[in-house]
């Protein structure tokens, strides 16, 4: 292996280290074991956090891992990717006196134990004869599958990609979430007898009608799709990337050397933009700029992601909107023409609308452009199931996760948006659990079947 390749690979190794046993015990014993603990309430999956921490302290590692994974089937991933400052750790009462417990690190310590011990923590429930199809093997679909299998359902997941895991396998940068973690979580769910059909696209390999016909219940957990077009000139040029696809490539083995020493512009300032930008830095880009048409205040990336990107050397150009991507004769990106913006009236979403400053056009020389302005929706698939949606966000009864078609449930990113919730992995996991519970409740109460 040449030295550049190994350097790039090192750049994508998980950033944080696992706690040592000493560290974990010290930290676990610092937990106050609060009653009615705010950290539990701040966790979308309601992990009994003081309990799992007490179990680390008492050396009951199996119990600790079970407590976590019982509440959150993808608790090993969430230990790494949850915005803990905004959730459990942000709620820790010790914020008011000393410093919060490192809950995420302790959760990783316990789930790492589970990964390495290979203990079977859960088992398939006795079969109840019911069949459920889940479309999408991401956080929501996997969580639903885990719980349904424990309840005794025969579960089949249809996944278009070659690997299960969804966002975890393809969308979260490796230096935060290595593939082995997601692979292990998928394996645990497969061990419960869940049939995961990868490389199977609903609508191509099997029709929505066939699924509706063959299964007692269906869960739509397809997430979101590619980044939409910027609708500016030059998008077809070589060197223009979709951030989702760009991150996905870094998760799939060979790391490209094409960006070594190059200048990269990232359009957008959400968490995906940060991922695209930091991946570009780690692929050896010499300069990476995030271009955002609003300001830091309106940016949707988490504060810790913003800090992280800055530490990686990413530049932030606020109030800057792309107008046109410029290519050379060979069709390769050489620059991006931008215009300065200013904030105007407050819009419907409560944020000030950006307005063009006329005549402020300027050109930034770049070798690559990464688009990260949101994600498209799988509208045709949603419609194939005959489901109602609002701009690709499936309409559901938020208490039952049910679509107007009573046997079809939806969860995860496919129901996020238009002001409904926040697209976190941990929220998707909870919605998957909720959908599973709702299906099970419906079975328990056949009289309520529509």
């Amino acid at each position, binding site marked *: 292996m040449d030295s550049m390749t190994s350097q790039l690979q090192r750049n994508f190794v998980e950033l944080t280290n696992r706690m040592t046993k*000493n560290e974990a015990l010290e930290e676990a014993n610092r937990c106050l*074991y609060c*009653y009615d603990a705010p950290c539990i309430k701040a966790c979308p999956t309601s992990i009994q956090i003081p309990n799992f921490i*007490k179990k680390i302290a*008492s050396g009951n590692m199996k119990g600790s891992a079970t407590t976590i994974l019982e509440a959150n089937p993808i608790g090993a991933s969430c230990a790494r990717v949850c915005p803990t400052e905004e959730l459990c750790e942000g709620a820790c009462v010790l914020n008011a006196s000393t410093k919060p417990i490192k809950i995420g690190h302790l959760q990783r310590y316990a789930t790492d134990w589970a990964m390495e011990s290979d203990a079977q923590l859960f088992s398939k429930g006795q079969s109840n004869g019911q069949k459920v199809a889940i479309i999408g093997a991401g956080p929501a679909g996997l969580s639903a599958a885990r719980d349904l299998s424990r309840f005794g359902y025969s579960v089949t997941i249809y996944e278009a990609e070659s690997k299960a895991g969804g966002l975890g396998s393809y969308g979260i940068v490796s230096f935060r979430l290595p593939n082995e973690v997601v692979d292990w979580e998928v394996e645990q769910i497969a061990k419960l007898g869940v049939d995961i059909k990868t490389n199977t696209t609903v609508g191509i390999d099997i029709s929505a009608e066939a699924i509706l016909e063959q299964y007692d219940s269906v869960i739509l957990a397809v997430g979101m799709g590619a980044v939409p077009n910027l609708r500016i000139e030059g998008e077809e040029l070589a060197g223009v990337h979709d951030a989702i696809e760009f991150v996905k490539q870094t998760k799939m083995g060979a790391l490209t050397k094409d960006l070594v020493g190059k200048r990269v512009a990232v359009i957008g300032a959400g968490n995906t933009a940060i991922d695209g930008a930091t991946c570009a830095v780690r692929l050896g880009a010499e300069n990476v700029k995030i271009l955002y048409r609003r300001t830091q205040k309106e940016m949707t990336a988490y504060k810790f992601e913003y800090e992280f990107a800055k530490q990686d050397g990413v530049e932030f150009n606020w109030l800057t909107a792309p107008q046109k991507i410029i290519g050379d004769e060979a069709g390769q990106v050489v620059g991006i023409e931008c215009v300065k913006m200013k904030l105007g009236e407050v819009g419907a979403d409560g944020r000030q609308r950006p307005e063009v400053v006329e005549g402020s056009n300027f050109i930034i020389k770049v070798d690559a452009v990464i688009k990260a302005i949101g994600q498209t929706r799988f509208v045709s698939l949603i419609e194939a199931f005959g489901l109602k949606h609002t701009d690709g966000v499936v309409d559901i009864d938020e208490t039952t996760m049910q679509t107007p078609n009573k046997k079809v449930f939806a969860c995860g990113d496919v129901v996020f948006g238009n002001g409904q919730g926040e697209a976190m992995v941990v929220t998707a996991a909870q919605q998957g659990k909720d959908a599973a519970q709702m299906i099970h409740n419906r079975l328990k109460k056949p009289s309520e079947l529509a």
Partner: protein
Amino acid sequence: MADLRIDLAGIKSPNPFWLASAPPTNSGYQVQRAFEAGWGGAVWKTLGEPILNVSSRFAAVSYNGQRVAGFNNIELITDRPLEVNLQEIYETKKRFPNHAIIVSLMVEPKQEKWHEIVKKVEDVGVDGLELNFGCPHGMAERGMGSASGQVPELVEKQTYWVKEVARTPVIVKLTPNITDITVTAEAATRGGADAISMINTINSLAGVDLDTWNTVPHVGGKGAHGGYCGPAVKPIALNMVAECARNPSINVPISGIGGISNWQDAAEFMLMGATGVQVCTAAMHHGFSIVEDMIDGLNNYLDDKGIASVMDLVGRTVPRYSDWGNLDLNYKIVAEINNDVCINCNKCHIACEDTSHQCIDLYTESGRPMLKVREQDCVGCNLCSIVCPVDGAITMVERKSAIAPMTWNERQSLISNLAK
């Protein structure tokens, strides 16, 4: 899933975790909450002639910022009317028929007093009785509690009186405020005790306030000794349990008490001969829900060890506990330092140099500070590994002795045989 049920002298409970007779078991409300949380049994706070309590009752010892390393109290037995307690015991037993309710008792050392209270308590339906011969404060000044428990004849006689009328198993709770607990334990068995429990609290004063010069705790500027419990007393309790367990003339089950805070502590007491354990301080520190990890952790431990029933744990280490005279004089271990793990705090060196056997050398190798044990001078005392803050930096390793094992007792008998 291991079987956690225990049978202690005929008292059955779904798991070995009982709440000890103490503030947590003061009322039906509390005991029922405890059973809901998963506790297998409870020893009701001591009944007797109603008493008066004082205000300011508890104090705790923090150690290097760790709260409740030890706990001290001057609260007495129940201050609620006997009838109220009996009614609540009846209701609790009715609601939780499979949980163990043992009632702690303390009356004046008079036969009729014991007969009277035993009958009253057994009439409401309890699983067993625990005679409180241990409470070291207040009641002892009136000739009860540890004042009774320190006199073997009184232990035996009162146990006997109780056994004259008791229909349920009788546990005698012993005080540690005595030179040799096996003496009172034996007295209890002579009196007919079905089981013994230990330890009650140790005479203590938690501290002195350096600004006010008041004792901690104090009652309006005046203090009196209390009873000490919590994690700090565990080694004392564990030894007392073990001494009774290995004593061939004490052939009754033991309920272990003293600083038990988690499943590991409980497993240790059971290995040392306790059939079940009683907990107080840990529950007072964290609430009843701590029993969830106690049950789960013990169950996982037994599963890991391939042990089907927790009863199979009882007493497994007792045969390995003996007198000093039976220890092998030729067994040799030495300290080994792993310089790759060592963080160079030098605590092992100074501990050995100043306070033990001067066998850990400091030296430099290629400019790097290193530590090495001179094995020929190491006595295998463990001190360096005790003060070492890093896992794996110091390991005590066995060195096969060229000489056959020999204990002090064997050596002395050999010498006396040679002299003949």
